[in-house]
């Protein structure tokens, strides 16, 4: 069966036809043969009986007259002519089975006399038997005078006669079958060819099309069975016509596709923005346009060996959140891209899932925002400076205290020395300890100033918001308290850490606290309200967020201003008092850390600023790693 399947269609048709014919012929031969045998045998018997009956009629009178010579003559005459082939022997008997005449010239076959004696001469019958090594039908026909049986004619019909006929017929049949087979051999071959030649042509043409050669000619084969499209009105022609239509359609589509390809290729090539094509899960770079290559300084083939993770700082969790299935997603967090030379730049990322060469990919476009970021940090620095101004008075005041204390202590010691009085040990300890601790305090204040003014590092750290709150409290808390405002710290224990910068976080808290103080002072001044000002700093958390709330009972914010306060250059302060950059900058910083800031306020009743950050899950530090985003958009 395997062999059959491997044949070409042409040979399949050919072999099937041939096989079928042979099978049919074989069965016809078998059938006919059996039919013939039965037919011929019946005919032989009938003929034999007929002859025996003729002989019976002739011998009647001689049986009556017991003329054995005449009976013998009749018997021998019965074997004359073409009867010789059929009649092997003849016997004429009386009604008691005695043989009166016979044709056994050379002698009786063994047992024939007894056989004849035992026969029932009354009834016609046929027995199949062997006489003298010849297969015969022994036929008995009674000779009747009226209703009385006076004798019988018994003849042996030679079966060999039929067998010879049959073998002759068989040979004839076989020759005929062979002829038919030979003829059909050629016929079926031609038939198969006739069917499959157009198909073979079509296969050739299809192959050409596959190779992109659309300019195929339907060649005229030039022979008798020349196949022109539409020459015959059958399925092959229909197939051919459909094929031609398909080819022209295909030609058109291919051209369009090519044109489209060119267009998008052009777009990709000369896009003003860097574009990467990355594999969806591994983020391996599959392609990058020239702009991207230029931006990063790598060579194209180097890029194609890398994953996007090795170029960009992509290991934040928020990457996964902003990645619903299928739709364009803007990931505008400031993503750091590392150049080949070690330098880096900031980009905004737009990513779109797509299919590219049978793979699920992301098309990632990047917009260079390095300048923006720099400007941003410069702004932040500037605002910090502004804050610093506010702080310096406080700081000066703060430092004066420990300095005064140190002065007092050292003056006491000098005085004692001048008076040449012994200082009691415990007094000396106390004074020295005081001096030491005041120096520490002063150093701390200075140190805080230092850290505060320092430009923040770009990489985020794991920090505790509670610590920032406490740090700010240390800087400005005393000052605020001195202004008759209560500063309440309500810090949640076991607060999860967040990814941020300590001094920036402090900046934020510091800024909000000063805003709250200003609001309270405003209330007291304008409304002449002598209610004590309260600023409450509280931290809280739930499963995946960390929150910080700064509440005050200042003047509050008008509803119309609620949305505007985060706009740049919007301020309610007097000219020269503030630039109005505080809150926008704060918002920028908070957004940087993937956090949110919200405000609630009722005019006259103060405001609550609530900041939330995503809780940082314990993992590897703030390193650039090669990683994957798996199917659940979890960073691994």
């Amino acid at each position, binding site marked *: 069966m395997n062999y059959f399947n491997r044949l070409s269609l042409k040979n399949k048709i050919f072999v099937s036809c041939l096989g079928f014919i042979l099978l049919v012929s074989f069965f016809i031969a078998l059938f006919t043969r059996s039919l013939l045998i039965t037919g011929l045998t019946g005919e032989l018997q009938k003929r034999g009986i007929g002859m025996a009956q003729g002989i019976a009629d002739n011998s009647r009178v001689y049986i009556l007259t017991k003329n054995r*010579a005449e009976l*013998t003559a009749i018997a021998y005459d019965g074997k004359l002519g073409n009867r010789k082939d059929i009649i092997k022997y003849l016997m004429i008997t009386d009604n008691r089975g005695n043989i009166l*005449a016979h044709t056994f010239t050379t*002698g009786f076959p063994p047992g024939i006399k007894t056989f004849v004696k035992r026969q029932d001469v009354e009834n016609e019958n046929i027995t199949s038997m062997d006489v003298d090594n010849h297969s015969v039908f022994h036929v008995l026909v009674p000779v009747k005078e009226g209703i009385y049986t006076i004798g019988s004619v018994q003849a042996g019909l030679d079966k060999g006669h039929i*067998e010879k006929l049959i*073998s002759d017929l068989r040979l004839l049949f*076989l020759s005929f079958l*062979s002829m038919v087979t030979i003829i059909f051999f050629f016929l079926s071959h031609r038939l198969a060819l006739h069917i499959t030649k157009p198909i073979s042509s079509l296969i050739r043409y299809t192959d050409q099309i596959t190779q992109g050669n659309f300019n195929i000619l339907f060649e005229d084969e030039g022979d008798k069975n020349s196949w022109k499209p539409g020459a015959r009105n059958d399925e092959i022609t229909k197939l051919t016509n459909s094929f031609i239509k398909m080819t022209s359609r295909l030609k058109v589509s291919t051209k369009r596709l090519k044109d489209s390809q060119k267009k998008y290729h052009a777009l990709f090539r000369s896009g003003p923005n860097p574009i990467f094509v990355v594999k969806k899960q591994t983020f391996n770079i599959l392609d990058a346009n020239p702009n991207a290559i230029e931006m990063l300084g790598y060579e194209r083939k180097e890029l194609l060996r890398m994953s996007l993770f090795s170029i960009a700082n992509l290991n934040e969790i928020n990457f996964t959140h902003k990645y619903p299935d299928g739709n364009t997603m803007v990931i505008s967090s400031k993503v750091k891209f590392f150049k080949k030379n070690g330098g880096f730049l900031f980009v905004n990322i737009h990513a779109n899932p797509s299919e590219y060469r049978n793979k699920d990919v992301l098309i990632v476009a990047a917009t260079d925002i390095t300048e923006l970021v720099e400007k941003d940090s410069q702004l932040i620095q500037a605002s910090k400076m502004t804050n610093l101004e506010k702080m310096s008075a406080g700081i000066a005041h703060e430092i004066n205290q420990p300095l005064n204390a140190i002065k007092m202590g050292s003056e006491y010691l000098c005085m004692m020395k001048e008076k040449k009085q012994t200082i009691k040990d415990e007094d000396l300890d106390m004074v020295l300890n005081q001096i030491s601790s005041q120096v520490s305090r002063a150093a701390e204040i200075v140190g805080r100033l230092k850290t505060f003014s320092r430009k923040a590092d770009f990489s985020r750290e794991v920090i505790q918001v509670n610590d920032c709150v406490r740090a700010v409290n240390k800087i400005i808390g005393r000052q605020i308290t001195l202004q008759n405002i209560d500063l309440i710290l309500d810090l949640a224990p076991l607060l999860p850490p967040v990814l941020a910068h300590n001094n920036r976080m402090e900046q934020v808290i510091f800024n909000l606290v000063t805003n709250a103080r200003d609001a309270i002072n405003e209330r007291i001044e304008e409304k002449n309200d002598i209610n004590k000002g309260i600023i409450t700093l509280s931290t809280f958390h739930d499963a995946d967020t960390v929150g910080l709330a700064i509440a005050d009972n200042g003047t509050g914010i008008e509803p119309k201003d609620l949305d505007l306060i985060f706009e740049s250059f919007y301020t309610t302060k007097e000219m020269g008092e503030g630039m109005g950059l505080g809150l926008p900058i704060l918002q920028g910083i908070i957004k940087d850390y993937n956090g949110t800031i919200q405000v609630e306020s009722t005019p006259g009743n103060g405001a609550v600023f609530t900041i939330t950050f995503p809780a940082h899950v314990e993992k590897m530090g703030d390193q650039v790693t090669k990683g994957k985003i798996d199917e659940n958009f979890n960073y691994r």
Partner: protein
Amino acid sequence: MKKTNKSLLGSFLSVALPWAVAIFLLSACTPPQPQEITPENRNGITKDEILIGSSLALGGHAGYLGTQMLQGARSYIRHINDAGGIHNRKIRLIAMDDRYNPTQCLYNTQQLILEKKVFALFCYVGTPTTVRIIPLINEAQIPLVGMFTGANRLRQPVNRYLINIRASYYQETQSAVDFIVKEKKLNQVAVFYQYDEYGFDGLRGTEIALKKHGLIPVAKGSYVRGTLNIEGGLEKIIASNAQAVVMIGTYDSCAKFINLARERSFSPLFHNVSFVGSKELARRIGANGEGVMVTQVVPPPTVTPGTSPLPGVKEYIALLNASYPRRKPSFVGLEGYLNARILVEGIKRAGPDITREKFIKAIESIQKYDLGIQNPLSFGKNDTQGLDDVYYTVIHNGELVLIP
């Protein structure tokens, strides 16, 4: 296209060839009809005897012929047996009377072959009788030596079992016609014949002979075998004013014909063939026999005083006298004697380990055998007739006289 043709041919051959072979084998598979191989038949041969059978007319319308023949044959056979036989075997001849009746002849012959189990058949008389047993002879493969008939059917087609001695009817009628037309210069020739195969044979022979001279019989008259109803035929022939009548019949019917013709003053040249039984014919026609011609296939069985006798004839007469002293020699008897001579020669030549096959081969080997009748006898593979000469005799004074 050429390439496909070549591969087509190749694949065709690779399929057709085994197929053809298969057919060949299949056809060969049908068993051929087994040849009828009968072992060498040793019927009739015993240590001291060879059994020979004969069915012939010893009674009835042709009884003279059989009787005469048998006497001639038996004379010689007794002579041989008295001398010790051949290879220490004596010849025993069983003769059955069939009264010139073909069915009886058939039945008798079946008896001889099947029951008596004779070695060979011998001295049959008559055309219808002898031709009737041809199937038996062929089936039993038994030789028949010496038939008192010149029938064509016993000679053509050549049958090696039928060993003819005498010349054929065609030869006899040829001679007769030659004599009538050339010697007697007569061309109005009629034919009177027995209405059976013997008569038809003679008629045919006459017609063939006449045709050679550009003639046809002017009249043909016949009679039914076994009857003497010759009148119808006679009328016809008289009416034709034939100058000569070639007669193919038996002695009784021919005698009646000639007598009646003479009564009616119709006297053409009567010409008989040897089967007629010339002596008996002569006896029956008496004075009317003057000038009646009879062709013979053996020389006259008489010793003419003044001429040196033929040795064969002499021996015949002597032996006949020894066995049948009261019988007179006759043409028919001489033929019987000659038949016996050939039979004995054949047995002699076949050797002591005799079989039918050997006997036949022995007969075929007889070449230019001198029977002492100045008529050398030859047989051969395709020649189953020994003698060829035809003699002219004429009845003169009631005696048959040889015309030289």
